[in-house]
């Protein structure tokens, strides 16, 4: 250690008060602390080394694992890259043969220009549209008018309201010639019964064999069915 007098003189120059106190320690240590410290520290080192050796034994790695790990990883990366290449070659050989070079270009100095910077700045900022008091009242009244229009139209075009047609009455009003003419024009009818799908019945031929009374009687008997059909 450096000369004690030199250090004492140094502190006397800076602070005679501190120098007068002296550097004797005021703290005390427990009795026999230093004589027992060595065994305490050796015991602690022994325990620490035991814990560490136990830690090491918990898991093990295959021999030379870390030596070959970089090679193993590189081999795997290469294999993955080859799989990617061969996959595209199988799916689209022409696409695989093309160069991935970018064909698009941007104006010179575009990314350094103010235009680009302004674009980035504007993109990050949400745009706010402001309405004047007048514009707001126009929008409010327009919305109210549209709603009223929708409601009025809805009343007239309500799905429950359909114009019904009294078919029986209408058919009865038709003359025999008009009926015959209708059936002549619409001679082929597809029967909806699944068992007879594809069978075609020539209604005109069938009707020719029926009398006018038979037709009227049929229409009166099936009046309700016809009514339902037309309402659908």
């Amino acid at each position: 250690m450096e000369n004690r007098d030199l250090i004492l003189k140094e502190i006397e120059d800076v602070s005679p008060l501190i120098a007068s106190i002296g550097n004797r320690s005021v703290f005390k240590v427990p009795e026999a602390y230093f004589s027992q410290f060595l065994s305490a520290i050796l015991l602690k080192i022994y325990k620490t080394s035991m814990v560490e050796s136990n830690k090491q034994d918990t898991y093990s790695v295959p021999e030379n694992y870390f030596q070959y790990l970089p090679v193993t990883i590189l081999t795997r990366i290469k294999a993955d890259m080859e799989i990617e290449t061969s996959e595209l070659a199988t799916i689209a050989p022409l696409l695989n043969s093309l160069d991935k070079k970018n064909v698009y270009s941007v104006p010179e100095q575009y990314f350094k220009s103010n235009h680009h910077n302004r674009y980035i700045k504007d993109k990050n900022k949400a745009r706010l549209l402001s309405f004047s008091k007048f514009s707001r009242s126009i929008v409010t009244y327009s919305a109210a008018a549209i709603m009223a229009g929708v409601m009025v139209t809805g009343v007239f075009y309500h799905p429950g309201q359909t114009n019904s047609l009294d078919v029986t009455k209408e058919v009865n009003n038709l003359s025999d010639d008009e009926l015959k003419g209708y059936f002549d024009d619409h001679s082929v009818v597809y029967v909806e019964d699944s068992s007879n799908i594809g069978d075609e019945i020539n209604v005109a031929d069938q009707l020719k064999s029926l009398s006018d009374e038979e037709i009227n009687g049929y229409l009166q008997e099936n009046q309700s069915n016809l009514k339902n059909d037309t309402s659908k």
Partner: protein
Amino acid sequence: MHLEDSELLFQFKQPSSKEKELAFTGIVKKYQEKLYWHIRRMVVDHDDANDVLQNAFIKVWKGLANFREDSQLYTWLYRVATNECLTFLDQQKKRASVSLNEDENGLSNKVKADENFDSSKLEWKLQLAIQQLPERQRLVFNLRYYDEMPYEEMSRILETSEGALKASYHHAAKKIEDFLINN
């Protein structure tokens, strides 16, 4: 009678574990008191000083095989002990900031809590004054005033220039004097 540091280091680097333990025992016996007091002045409480000293010697045990002898053994031991001290004090500060009950100046309270504390004695007032200093200044003052360490060695331990250490020591002494006069 203690062996020279170079002999202890040579003995420690022998393959025999018995030689190694003997060398380590020699190092502990030779430096335990110096390092203890260096630590104790920084952390104040004996139990804390004991913990820090044990941790420091465990670090020494683990690191001594790789000690390159660029510096003297005792300089290296002081550096290990100082780093352990600073780590411990950092942990204490973190705990104090988490715990709302902890006082702002825990070290002064620890001084006052010492069983031999006597507020009328100037030596104890000096201890309270030292605890008011910033950590780095406290370290410099203790190493110079109590351990009587040359600035050159302090510079190696604290990795600070000798000029800066001298200035720090003078500032610390002035602050302590002010505290002693005003309290």
